[in-house]
Structures are given as structure tokens and as C-alpha cells.
């Protein structure tokens, strides 16, 4: 009896094979959270893939309807914990738009600086974990070294390393501490060299090229079909950056480029993110130069001068109000409001910003009560993740982590 005679082994096409269904996740080292991918493998080739989401759903949108505006704000840090300044910005700016709150320029600049720094930390973490997915362990530690430096800067400003809760309606919680601008500047001057250091081991690494070039190509049509935004979209050649197209804060006063890729493959997405970190450095450097009032010590001195002048005027019997007040652009709170009980008037606003992962939007409807009527989030990760099966089918199983990693998806933002 030969092997051909055994029933069930051979079909008319030859040796009988079966597809292998692998449940990747929700507990898996490189699904960046709790994503489940039901993957059908033919050998090592992916035949089908269905992402299953919702393992991290914490009803963030419903929570907004059951607590006051200010009480809801700290929970935003947990939505997108790698770049929570952006969530806060979008939320706060929605309220500011509904209530037409005045935002001083110094606040705008502080927000830009912190957001761009946060973009760098987010991209650094992406850089480390992306290469970890490719199997290189060292870059993660180098990326975390600089991330740690930025976290120290954040800690000085906000008191927290990751959960900042720093922005306020029409302002920020506290001014930058004295000397912070100089420290930030010296760090930002170092940063491009550090990025060179990362690139020296990765960008021309033959194995990295083998694993990334031409893999997971996403053409512009596909991007638009799935609503892909952010660096992944720009890597496909569309120079869509909300900081340029719909400037918010003071981005229209700053000169910066929008890095754009050509092929839309994993390698281009890598290159675009590395270039974006350099652009963020440029933005921060300009912001530090242009921030109204400059260092906190300067603002304090000016305030002390004004106070002294007012006291002197009072002593002379003149009206202290004749002495000019501190430039309103130097303040960190546009108008005094009681945050705990603050309620914007009835209205509706949709605000967006360019988060490290793409377009982050917040649609807020206020009915004039202390609680929001509805808060709807538009996270970039959700759309960016939805394109994954399209990119994976026909590719090798080993490409999964390269492609998935390059999309820079964070699951808490997908599930909210």
C-alpha cells in the first residue's frame, strides 16, 4: 500500500491541505493592546483577516453625558494615553468654540509646544515598538531614553508624566515653570542628532529594507476609501495635514513642512514619521522663540513691575488703573471662570486637530446644562485599523506585524 492509497490524503489537485485559522490576540505581544485578528493562513500566506475590536471599550462617550464638563476631562487621558494632549485640546477647543471663550496667545503657544512634544513622544514610542515588531530590540530603549527626557519636561509643567489633564477651558492649568523654556530648547537642539542616531541603525539596514520596502502598499484611492489620515495618508503622497490645511492654535504663524511619501509602503510610513519628528522639533524651536512673554520669570518680573507701579500710583493718589495691565496675550487664562461648575451655553461644535495618528475630532452638543448632551469622538486609529485586512490579504504572516505596526494604531482610541 502506497501513500496514495490512504483515503483523505490526496485530492485530484494533489496533496490535501487545510487552511489554518489563527486567532491573533486579544492577548498577544504585538497587537498594541487588545486587538483580535481572526486570520486564515494558507501556509504562511494570509488568506483572510477579520479584526475584532471592542475589548477595551470603556464607554467614554456615554461617560461625557453623566458628568460635568470638568469632571469628564481627566478621563480623556485614558482614551489615547500616548498623546493625550491632543484629546484634551480637541475637547477644550470644542467648549471654547461653543462658549466663544477667549484664548490668550501665550496659551496657544504653550499648547502648541506641549502638543508637538507629545507628538515626538508618541512617534518615539511608535518607532521603538515598530522595530520591536520587526524583531530589533535595541531601538526601543534608545527611543525611550529621549521619551523619558520629554516626560521630565512634561512633569515639570503638568505634574504628570502621561496623564496630564493640563488644558483648561480658555487656558491652561499653570504657566511654564521658570527656566523651562531654556531646558526645552536645549533638549530640542539635541533631538535632531538623536533622530540621526536612530536612523543610522535603521534607515539603511538591509534587513529593515527587506522587511519594509514595497510591503503593505496603500494607494491614495484606498486611503480615501477607508478614511485613513495622518502619517499613513501622507506616506501615500497626499499632503493632508490639518496644521496646514485648517490651521488651529497659531500654526499659521509657524514655518514648517509636511513630509510626504511617494509609495505608501511600510518604509515610507517609517520615513514620514521620522521626518515629522524633525518638523516637530522645528515647530517647537520657533514656538519657544515666539511665545509671548517668554520665560515665566520674565512674566513674573513684568507683573511685579506693574504691581509696583500701581502701588506707586496709588500712593501718589493717582488712579492705579491708569497704569497699563499685563498684556492679555501673556496670561494663561483668558477669562476667570469657575471650572467646577462651568457650563457652556447651548450650542454645537466639531473641532479637529492633527494628532500623531491622524485626524482627531470631537463633536460636542451642549444643551446649556452642566453636562454635555452628547460628545462624539472621531479617532484616527479606528479608520487606520479598518484598512488592515485590505493590506494583509495575500501577504505573508510575518508581514502582519510590519504592516500593523506601521499603521500606528492604538487600541484604546479605537474602542474608546
Amino acid at each position, binding site marked *: 500500500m502506497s501513500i496514495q492509497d490512504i483515503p483523505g490524503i490526496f485530492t485530484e489537485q494533489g496533496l490535501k491541505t487545510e487552511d*489554518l485559522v489563527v486567532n491573533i490576540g486579544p492577548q498577544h505581544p504585538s497587537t498594541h493592546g487588545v486587538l483580535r485578528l481572526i486570520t486564515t493562513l494558507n501556509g*504562511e500566506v494570509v488568506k483572510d483577516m477579520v479584526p475584532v475590536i471592542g475589548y477595551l471599550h470603556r464607554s467614554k462617550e456615554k461617560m461625557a453625558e453623566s458628568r460635568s464638563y470638568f469632571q469628564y476631562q481627566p478621563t480623556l487621558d485614558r482614551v489615547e494615553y500616548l498623546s493625550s494632549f491632543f484629546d484634551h485640546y480637541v475637547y477644550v477647543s470644542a467648549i471654547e468654540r461653543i462658549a466663544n471663550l477667549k484664548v490668550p496667545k501665550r496659551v496657544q503657544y504653550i499648547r502648541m509646544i506641549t502638543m508637538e512634544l507629545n507628538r515626538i513622544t508618541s512617534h518615539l514610542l511608535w518607532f521603538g515598538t515598530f522595530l520591536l*515588531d520587526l*524583531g530589533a530590540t*535595541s531601538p*526601543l530603549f534608545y527611543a525611550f531614553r529621549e521619551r523619558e527626557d520629554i516626560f521630565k519636561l512634561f512633569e515639570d509643567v503638568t505634574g504628570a508624566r502621561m496623564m496630564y489633564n493640563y488644558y483648561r477651558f480658555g487656558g491652561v492649568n499653570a504657566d511654564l515653570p521658570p527656566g523651562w523654556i531654556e531646558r526645552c530648547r536645549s533638549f530640542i537642539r539635541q533631538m535632531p542628532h538623536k533622530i540621526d542616531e536612530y536612523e543610522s541603525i535603521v534607515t*539603511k539596514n*538591509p534587513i529593515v529594507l527587506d522587511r519594509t520596502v514595497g510591503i503593505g502598499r496603500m494607494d491614495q484611492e484606498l486611503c480615501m476609501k477607508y478614511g485613513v489620515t495622518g502619517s499613513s495618508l501622507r506616506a501615500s503622497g497626499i499632503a493632508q495635514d490639518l496644521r496646514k490645511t485648517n490651521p488651529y492654535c497659531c500654526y499659521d504663524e509657524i514655518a514648517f513642512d509636511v513630509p510626504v511619501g511617494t509609495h505608501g509602503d511600510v518604509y515610507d510610513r517609517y520615513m514620514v514619521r521620522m521626518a515629522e519628528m524633525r518638523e516637530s522639533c522645528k515647530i517647537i524651536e520657533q514656538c519657544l522663540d515666539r511665545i509671548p512673554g517668554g520665560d515665566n520669570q520674565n512674566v513674573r518680573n513684568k507683573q511685579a513691575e506693574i504691581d509696583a507701579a500701581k502701588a506707586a500710583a496709588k500712593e501718589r493718589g493717582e488712579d492705579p488703573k491708569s497704569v497699563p495691565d499685563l498684556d492679555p496675550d501673556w496670561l494663561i487664562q483668558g477669562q476667570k471662570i469657575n471650572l467646577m461648575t462651568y457650563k457652556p451655553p447651548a450650542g454645537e461644535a466639531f473641532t479637529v486637530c492633527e494628532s500623531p495618528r491622524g485626524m482627531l475630532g470631537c463633536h460636542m452638543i451642549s444643551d446649556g446644562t452642566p453636562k454635555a448632551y452628547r460628545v462624539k469622538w472621531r479617532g484616527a486609529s479606528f479608520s487606520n485599523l479598518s484598512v488592515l485586512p485590505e493590506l494583509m490579504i495575500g501577504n505573508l*504572516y*510575518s508581514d502582519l506585524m510590519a504592516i500593523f505596526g506601521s499603521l500606528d494604531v492604538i487600541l484604546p482610541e479605537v474602542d474608546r
Partner: protein
Amino acid sequence: MYQPTPDFPEWLPRIFQKILDLFGLSVNWADWGSLLTVLWAVVVFTLIAVVAQASVIFMVLMERKVLAWMTQRKGPNRVGPWGALQTLADGVKLLFKEDIIPKGANKFLFTIAPALFFLPTFVFFGLIPFTSQLLAVALPAGALFVFAISSLSVVGLVLAGWASNNKYSLLGGMRSAAQAISYEIPLVMAVLGVVLFTGSMNIGDIVKAQQGPFWNWYGVLLTPVSLFIFFISTLAEVNRVPFDLPEAESELVSGYNTEYTGMKFALFFLAEYAALFAMSAFNVAFFLGGYFSPFGKFILELLTHQEAAQMTGPLQLGLQVEMLFWFMMKTYLFIFLAMWVRGTLPRLKPDQLMGFSWKFLIPLSLINIFVIAIEKFMVLPGGESVMNHLPILQPGSSLSSWAIWIVIAAVVFGGFFILMSRLLSEKLEARLAHR
């Protein structure tokens, strides 16, 4: 001549005689010689096996320290001085862990798979010529036996992958089988050049043939390409980065050992490091002159003005210790290189892994064997071998032959590396240009 084991040291019968004298017994050593030879092999193997395990424990610590140093961390520094007892603590932890066998697993195969994986790496230690005496079994076909045995460990991996009843493990096991088949070939072919030069497969003989200063070592001037191929293939053979596909943690969670816990996992872990140690040791034996010192003479020889062959008693013991020192230094050099590679490179994909072996390493090793055969067997007009005109240098060699060697070395090394870097950069450019 068939020589199953090396000669036992001359002091061994004397010690036995002294012990026997205590009991008033006498023995005719001519009758007992072969038994002593076997006994010596057992003694040496036991000694080596125990010390090697300690060495492997040290290697785990070394790897963690080296990687920490490369990634600006401190590494283990809490258990014992300088973190020296960290691996021991980990071992104790693994010992006390619950031994879990998954429900759908084939219990018998699941249990013997780690042993099957561990066994071959253990056998290696009997074949490594640590010094001229510290060699358990000097097999006449040792070089062949090493690779025959090393292929066996793959059976353990595939079994572990299959018996775990886990899809990740299965994929890991399959990958390791494909990888082993691909990289055994260049591995053996790299050593074939050395065997050609020596005319023997006895690892001890191969080492002895490289006696002399470091430029006499095969890997330095005669077959540097073989060394290059062998090093890469050993990385693949022991599943090290960038060839660690069977346990690619970002894709396969932990590959073939996903379902293993406790001591079974520890066996896999130990065996991997032991295999890395053994492969580095063979690399040294085949290509870097084994236990010989790089200066042509042992330091002890230079100090005492005695030939190594004439040394006896404690002096001989000292010589053995020096040999062990040189052997370990060179072995740890390769181990360090493997760790360095791990700290630098990402992982290949399975298809690239196969492609690299079949499209690059195997053709390269075929060409290499061809070149070595020319070096060894080409006869000049007049019936003289080319080898005679490539004089193996001795400290007393003439200046001109030194100059010839330095020029040859520069051309061979420079040419090889320029060619490689040109090929690589061209490939990279092409890769980026045509996507």
C-alpha cells in the same frame, strides 16, 4: 589510525597506583590501559558537562549585561554582587513553577521534546577540544558527527511545536525545520574547506594542524570566507537573531515553546545557550586555532623556555590551563559577536531566510570550496604544489614571505568586504528604486 579517545595523562595511572597501594593491590597497567582510556573519557565528559552548564548560566547573565550595555541600561544588578546570581534565581523560580501540560497536547511527546532538544547540545560538549587533553572523545569523523547530531535537535523543536497543540507552536516548529534544512548545508560546506586542508575530520587534528601564530589559523588567511559562512550559519542553527524565526515573539508569541512552563521551558532555554556556546567553540576549533595562543608559542613556553611537548607535571597542568584560557577567550569572542548581532539587527522573514541561504550562502560556499581546492591541490608547472609557495609563516620566516602574506591578506579581506559592501549598497539602491 583509529584513536577513539586522546591519551590519558601519564599521571592518571600513578594516582590509581597510589590508591591501589593503600590497599596493597597491584595491577598490570598494560591490561588496564584501555579501560583507563574509557574512564578518562567519562571523567572528562562529566567535568566538561558540569562546567559547561555553569558556563551557560554565566552566558545568560553575560547576554543580559551585554544587551543592557548596548541599550544604555544597567542589566541585572540586584541578586548577588553585580547581579551574578540572577540566572540562578531565575532557575530556582523556574524549578518551582507549576508544570502545565495543555489539555489537547500529546503528553508523551510534549514531555520528551525538551529532552530531545537538549540531548544533542549536551553531546557536543564531549567533542569540543578545550585543550589538548581536555577532550572527552576524539572521534575520527568528529566534524561530521557534530553536524549529524546538531540536526537531531530540530526533531525536538518540531515535536515541541506539534505536541503543544498550539498553532503558534506549530508554525514555529515548521519554521525551525525549514531553517535547519537550509542552514545545515552551508554550515557543513564551510567546514569542508577546513577538512580539505587538514585531510582529517578529527576535530583534535584540525586544531593541531593550525598550530602556530594567528595567521596560521584557517579562518584568518586561508579560509576567511568559510569563517564568515560558518558564523552566519551557526546563528541560524541555534535560532539567534536575525534568524530567530521559530520563536519570533512579535508574531508567534514565543514560537515552539509557547506552551512550555517551568523546567521544561528552562531546558529549551538552557539548550539554546548551550548550543550557542558549542557552536562558537566549534567555530574556534575549526577556524581560529582552537586552544593555541595567537603568539605562536604559549606564554608558558616563552616564560620557561621549554617546548610544550616536554612539559610535565604541574607545568603541563599550567599549560592546559593556558590552553583553556585561550580557547574560552576566543569562544566568548564569538558569543559576544552573536550578542552584538542580537542587539543590532531585526528579524528576517521566513522567505528571506530561505532565500539568503539558498541564493547567497550556498553558492558562496560552493565557490569557496572551489577556491580552497585550488589553493590546496593546484600544481604549478614543474609539479610543485601551490601550497609550497604560500608558506605558512613561522616566527623565523623571512621578511619577504611576511610581506607576501600581508599583501594577500589585504587583497583577500579588502576585496571580499568591498565586494560585499558594493553588492549590498547596490541591492539597497535597487530595492528602494523599484518598489
